């Protein structure tokens, strides 16, 4: 970029000068573009002054207004800032208030989040601030209010932070729709997207500016005379990434990286402040315990993850900021946004899963752009060594993976339609045009749109029995749609959003009431009941369900014993350290191995030259695989069959991530069942799928077994029974407003009851109207996320005619790690009944 010669207004120049700073080129460029009324996507690494770049143009515009009118002038909303994190809005507000105050700008800036009290919200609606900092959900709520147009019509700028994290999600769908609404009310506003480095820049530009936008708009265009919409801050120094070559034996399987802890600890000792990233809460707890076990120097090492109590997290963040800590073990809670201190080393425990995520995490280290970030990858097993090495190479080359732009969810569209009807009544033709102008809904047909309107109005059922109970009604003269009445609108507003959290229980210390002996009262032998005491944090309900009262587990760095569950509290007591805690089982990270990284792992595996840097143990392992079986070419699929114990196994290595593998395992099991092979179970890891049964599987026609047509009937019949499909449906039904989590009237439903009734609703709908639009929405979600059908489809196409089969006398080196993970994994569907039957067999024993 040419360095613009633009001068800032004197007091801005002075402010920079007083601090010995100079505005950076990209900051000036954004000011210049804003003055020309142009929108921008700013791509910048952490620490590049991204936030100030986003707000500088607004502050410059607002300064003379404030000078003229003073703080008491009648305000109009000038700039809207949206971030995915509530905490980030507060943090950014704080960071902006300082310069605004120092320059005496007289600008009013306020946050609006779920925590904002009602009277302040009301005041904000009547008297908007100059700059409002908020979340996507709050924007949806504002749009669903009656005077939304008036509120937004003076809007000059929208700044969207961490846009790369929002855009490819359902929240991104809702936000894109909301932005299109703002465009109608304030057609001239400019948009500034702030993003980390991404693979699909064009996709982000389209998401930010609409389906028709392109990074280099043709001349002439309202986006500027053929110059790029994208402004790039200079990239930071190339990071220094090491993969830990452990002296200890690298485990075949497992995800704890326990073997590497002494070396990780040494690395922490050499650093000022290290962030130790892990993929799951369970790993965080484990790593924290292990580090303290070897912490002979008593270094201040803290723990930070989403389940911990907010107060606890705030304490850790504050201690980081004060420079009192040497390391923090954390999950994705510290991936985004806020800077909490002078981090100079990032350690990734276990596989990074994707390059973009790794880059983001590495960026947390060293916020001075001129110094390289330092990172250490600590793989927890042999396959992960390959993954770490592939990720390291990719990051150094600057190659990135990224979430593909997705088609917008129909459930989100339904929520938006209802929101619009709660605000200003809408015309269906106009709204369709508006919706189709957004990138996620660019391919939405008018027929689909009309079905969504129908879904919102009457539930969209073939049986037209709800035509008399419409949620939205059409004005006979204007033809515009509005909410039927205030109570329906209220019901919508209470249920806005696309974040459906998994059910959480509060973890509380149990206290024994009335333990102190009282005079005159004989001491009783019977223990008094336990009552809930101090809250330690939150934990996933499914995890507690897997425990029996009396079991111990690690939480918040302590070993706790479960006493029982009472309402939404898990009551616990502290257990002594020498007991062996029942560590949460590894359920895999939230994020499967990215397609991009998977491909690089497959290539690495086949390229002996690139393997030179691998640890000796891993090279030996690959060599042994070559001798005993074969190392497949990058586009081949190796399938091994072999007996072990009394069972026969079929193991294949697609490297396509856990989710796609789970689906593949399920479908392979069904097909083997039909082939009379009586499969007993399967296991899916990030790298491989194993199926086992009582008969040899070497004689199966593999081309038929792995044929693409498994995504047809087999998939359909599986989906019909799958609990996954039910939970997908429940989420869609909640987002679309068919089921409300929070009811207006007295009949309060807890999250649990919603899940339950959603199951029943799913069963009935499946039987009577399987093509219902929400069933389609649920199927689309299943295909994208949890079942990764897209990826599985691509795999099956890729390996057509490229199957390499080895019928082996015994387990191969590659299969060994998979076999170690083979646990008790019954074929799903049967599993639920099996649980009930377990309970019943107990009775049979008791009664015999």
């Amino acid at each position: 970029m040419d360095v613009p010669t633009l001068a800032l207004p004197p007091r801005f120049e002075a402010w920079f000068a007083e601090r010995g700073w100079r505005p950076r080129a990209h900051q000036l460029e954004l000011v210049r573009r804003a003055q020309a009324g142009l929108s921008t996507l700013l791509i910048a690494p952490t620490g590049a002054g991204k936030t100030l770049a986003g707000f500088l143009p607004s502050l410059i515009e607002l300064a003379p207004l404030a000078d003229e009118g003073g703080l008491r002038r009648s305000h109009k909303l000038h700039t809207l800032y949206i971030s995915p994190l509530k905490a980030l809005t507060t943090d950014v507000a704080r960071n902006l208030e300082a310069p605004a105050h120092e320059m005496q700008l007289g600008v009013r800036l306020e946050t609006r989040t779920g925590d904002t009290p009602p009277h302040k919200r009301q005041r904000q609606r009547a008297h908007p601030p100059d700059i409002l900092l908020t979340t996507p959900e709050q924007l949806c709520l504002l749009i669903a209010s009656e005077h939304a147009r008036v509120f937004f019509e003076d809007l000059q700028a929208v700044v969207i932070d961490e846009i790369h994290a929002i855009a490819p999600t359902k929240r991104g769908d809702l936000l894109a729709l909301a932005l299109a609404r703002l465009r109608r009310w304030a057609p001239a506003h400019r948009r500034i997207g702030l993003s980390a480095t991404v693979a699909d820049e064009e996709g982000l530009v389209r998401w930010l500016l609409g389906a028709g936008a392109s990074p280099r708009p043709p001349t002439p265009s309202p986006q500027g005379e053929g110059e790029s919409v994208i402004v790039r801050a200079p990239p930071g120094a190339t990071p220094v990434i090491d993969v830990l070559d452990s002296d200890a034996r690298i485990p075949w399987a497992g995800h704890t990286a326990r073997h590497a802890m002494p070396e990780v600890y040494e690395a922490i000792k050499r650093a000022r402040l290290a962030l130790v990233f892990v993929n799951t809460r369970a790993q965080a707890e484990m790593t924290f315990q292990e580090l303290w076990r070897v912490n002979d120097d008593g270094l201040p090492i803290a723990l930070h993850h989403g389940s911990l109590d907010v107060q606890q997290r705030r304490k850790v963040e504050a201690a980081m900021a004060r420079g009192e800590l040497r390391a923090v073990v954390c999950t994705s809670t510290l991936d985004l946004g806020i800077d909490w201190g002078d981090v100079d080393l990032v350690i990734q425990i276990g596989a990074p899963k994707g390059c973009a995520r790794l880059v983001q995490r590495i960026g947390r280290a060293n916020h001075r752009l001129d110094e390289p970030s330092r990172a250490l990858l600590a793989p927890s097993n042999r396959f992960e060594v390959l993954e770490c090495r592939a990720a390291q190479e990719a990051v150094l080359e600057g190659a990135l993976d990224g979430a593909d732009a997705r088609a917008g969810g129909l459930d989100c569209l339904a929520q938006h339609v209802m929101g619009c009807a709660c605000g200003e009544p809408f015309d269906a033709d106009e709204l369709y045009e508006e919706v189709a102008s957004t990138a996620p809904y660019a391919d939405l047909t008018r027929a689909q749109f009309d079905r969504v309107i129908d879904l919102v109005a009457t539930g969209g059922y073939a049986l037209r029995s709800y035509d008399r109970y419409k949620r939205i009604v059409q004005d006979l003269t204007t033809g515009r749609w509005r909410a039927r009445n205030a109570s329906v609108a209220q019901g919508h507003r209470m249920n806005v959003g696309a974040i459906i959290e998994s059910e959480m229980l509060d973890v509380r210390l149990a206290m024994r009431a009335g333990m102190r002996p009282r005079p005159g009262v004989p001491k009783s032998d019977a223990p008094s009941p336990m009552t809930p005491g101090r809250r330690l944090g939150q934990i996933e309900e499914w995890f507690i369900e897997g425990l029996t009262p009396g079991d111990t587990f690690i939480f918040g760095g302590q070993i706790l014993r479960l006493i029982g569950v009472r309402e939404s509290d898990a009551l616990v007591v502290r257990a002594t350290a020498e007991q062996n805690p029942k560590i949460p089982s590894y359920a895999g990270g939230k994020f499967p191995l990215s397609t991009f990284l998977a491909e690089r792992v497959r290539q690495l595996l086949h390229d002996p030259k690139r393997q030179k840097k691998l640890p000796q143990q891993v090279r030996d392992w690959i060599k042994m695989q070559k001798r005993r079986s074969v190392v497949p070419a990058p586009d081949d699929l190796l399938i091994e069959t072999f007996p072990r114990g009394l069972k026969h196994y079929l193991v294949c290595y697609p490297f396509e991530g856990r989710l796609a593998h789970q689906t593949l395992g399920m479908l392979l099991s069904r097909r083997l069942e039909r082939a009379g092979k009586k499969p007993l179970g399967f296991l899916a890891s990030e790298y491989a799928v194993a199926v086992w049964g009582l008969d040899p599987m070497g004689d199966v026609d593999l081309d038929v077994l792995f044929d693409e047509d498994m995504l047809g009937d087999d998939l359909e019949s599986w989906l019909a029974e799958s609990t996954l499909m039910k939970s997908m449906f429940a989420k869609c039904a909640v987002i679309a407003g068919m089921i409300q989590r929070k009811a207006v009237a007295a009949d309060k439903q807890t999250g649990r009851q919603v899940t339950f009734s959603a199951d029943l609703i799913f069963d009935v709908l499946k039987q009577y109207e399987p093509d219902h639009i929400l069933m389609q929405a649920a199927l689309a979600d299943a295909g994208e996320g949890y079942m990764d059908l897209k990826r599985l489809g691509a795999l099956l196409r890729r390996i057509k005619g490229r199957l390499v089969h080895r019928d082996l006398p015994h387990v191969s080196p590659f299969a060994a790690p998979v076999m170690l993970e083979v646990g008790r994994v019954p074929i799903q569907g049967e599993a639920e009944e099996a649980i009930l039957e377990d309970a019943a067999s107990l009775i049979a024993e008791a009664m015999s």
Partner: protein
Amino acid sequence: MLSQVPKKTPRLRRTVARPLPPLAIVGANVEARMCGVTVTALPDGALWVAESKALIVSDLHLEKGSSYALRGQMLPPYDTHATLTRVAALMEALAPEIVVSLGDSFHDGAGVARLAERDRELLQSMIARCDWVWVEGNHDGRAPETLGGAVREVLHLGALVLRHEPTLGVAPGEIAGHLHPCAKVAGRGRSVRRRCFATDGERLVMPAFGAFTGGLNLRDEAFDPLFPDGAMALVLGKARVLPAPQERLLSD
């Protein structure tokens, strides 16, 4: 009181071991004896009393979907049809002389008026085929009467006493509904929540039969006064009834 206690501290009120109620697993069903009468719990959630040829279903909550739709939640309108079809299939299979709907037959008092034509016809044809008794529930008032059948507050069937809401205190032979019992069974690292019958051999609480009816966990304290010595859950599996003792169950 805690709903779950550590393994080694037995629940105080269960210190005196009480024999499990006499049950027999017969094919897909479970038979229990109450006051000398054999009652059969069916996998669909209905109860069959062979000696009186009576089929009992409870808490049908017909027109629950439309009740929600009225208030702006557009649940599928197929629940009434789904529920009635299941009762009709049981009538086909068992040829009962008496069919008892044990209260809360409709989700609300105005439900009868909202019945779709085909559902009204189906229901009336079912009523015409047997001695149909509506036991009054707290949701329905006397509305179902207009469809035919008899309305009773309490129905005596030999030694059995059928009413909607269970009475507090000792009630040998009482069969009631109202509470929608559900059982949450744990195992293999996860849990399953299903509708269930609850019985201690003295009395029995029926599961809700309606297509959209959820349930109350059997470990909820609402069940404590009814089953002071604990109860057996007869859990509705996919194709069979599976017994489980209350203390094996999880609370929500």
